[in-house]
């Protein structure tokens, strides 16, 4: 490993001439050869750069603690994780909470409920509440990113748990933060949202509780989740901000708050990659390029 932790990161020069992808992949490969893995460096890397898709699941698993920093333990710990998954699944089948036709997202929900002591008794089964809907939505998105079902369940569970633990206190403040940055970037749009009464009704839930699951297609979403998993929930504010900025003209043309909300809940799926790229740039602009994970 290089003495200077920053040495492996692309220089401003490379950034300008566009060597990005290759340089980044090499830097990450060097980081992944460390044993034990340096979690702080891995976090910093994913805060700064998009993770190459071939390493994404592995890095997420390490950052979320599904795999320990010691590579020597990966196969043993991985086998424990798999057994735990299979045990829970089997028990749920025997107790008839799930059957072969149950959609996998619902299977994951029941598994999560079993583990967190929230599995309803059979007489109390009711339609999924808001929290369950959030879980299902995140599961659905994770399933599109992660192929292996054991990995998928562990990532959903750890992502949600980490998000609550780390950011539970910050989430209620994110709408205010969005308002603040919108006033900096586009005060006219902010006034319009305020005057029309839409500001209070924006789909904060989809943005800040579901982390854009179901809003952005997974190719864009995974780049946002790279940042969330490596330690920033602030990125969510900038993605929301960039959505507002990107559809400014459209939004200014809608006067009824319900119309605005309806549009934002179903944004066009075409240029979401560009939105995420701009959101990350804005986030770096306001919060600085992270040296350490935020």
């Amino acid at each position, binding site marked *: 490993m290089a003495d200077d932790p920053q040495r492996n990161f692309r220089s401003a020069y490379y950034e300008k001439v566009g060597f990005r992808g290759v340089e980044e992949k090499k830097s990450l490969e060097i980081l992944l050869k460390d044993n*034990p893995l340096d979690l702080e460096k891995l976090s910093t890397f994913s805060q700064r750069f998009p993770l190459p898709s071939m390493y994404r699941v592995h890095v997420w698993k390490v950052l979320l603690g599904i795999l*320990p*920093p*010691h590579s*020597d*333990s990966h196969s*043993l*710990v991985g086998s*424990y*994780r798999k*057994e*735990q998954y299979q*045990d*829970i699944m089997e*028990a749920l089948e*025997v*107790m008839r909470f799930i059957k072969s036709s149950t959609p996998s997202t619902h299977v994951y929900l029941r598994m999560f409920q*079993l*583990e967190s*002591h929230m*599995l309803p*008794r*059979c007489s109390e089964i009711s339609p999924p509440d808001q929290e369950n809907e959030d879980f299902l939505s995140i599961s659905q998105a994770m399933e599109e990113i992660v192929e292996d079902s054991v990995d998928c369940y562990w990532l959903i569970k750890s992502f949600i748990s980490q998000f609550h633990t780390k950011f539970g206190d910050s989430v209620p403040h994110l709408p205010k933060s969005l308002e603040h940055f919108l006033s900096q970037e586009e005060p006219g749009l902010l006034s319009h949202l305020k005057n029309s009464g839409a500001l209070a009704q924006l789909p904060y839930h989809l943005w800040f509780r579901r982390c854009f699951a179901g809003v952005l297609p997974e190719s864009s979403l995974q780049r946002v989740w790279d940042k969330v998993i490596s330690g920033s929930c602030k990125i969510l504010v900038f993605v929301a901000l960039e959505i507002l900025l990107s559809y400014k003209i459209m939004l200014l043309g809608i006067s009824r708050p319900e119309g605005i909300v309806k549009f934002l809940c179903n944004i066009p799926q075409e240029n979401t990659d560009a939105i995420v790229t701009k959101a990350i740039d804005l986030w770096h602009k306001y919060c600085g390029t992270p040296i350490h994970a935020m």
Partner: protein
Amino acid sequence: FLEDVKCQAAELQASDGRYQAQQRITQLLQIEILQLYSKVEMEAILVPDGPSQTCTNE
């Protein structure tokens, strides 16, 4: 050695997680069994001559 200790600590934690899930499963299975027994017994009352003697494992 310090690294070995840390390494094993992570393995121990994962192993414990697996045990705790199994423990939780056992609890739920026991509750389920109790419920099923009471169901079987209730039916045994309704169909006294049916084949529904509950199995008490005794």
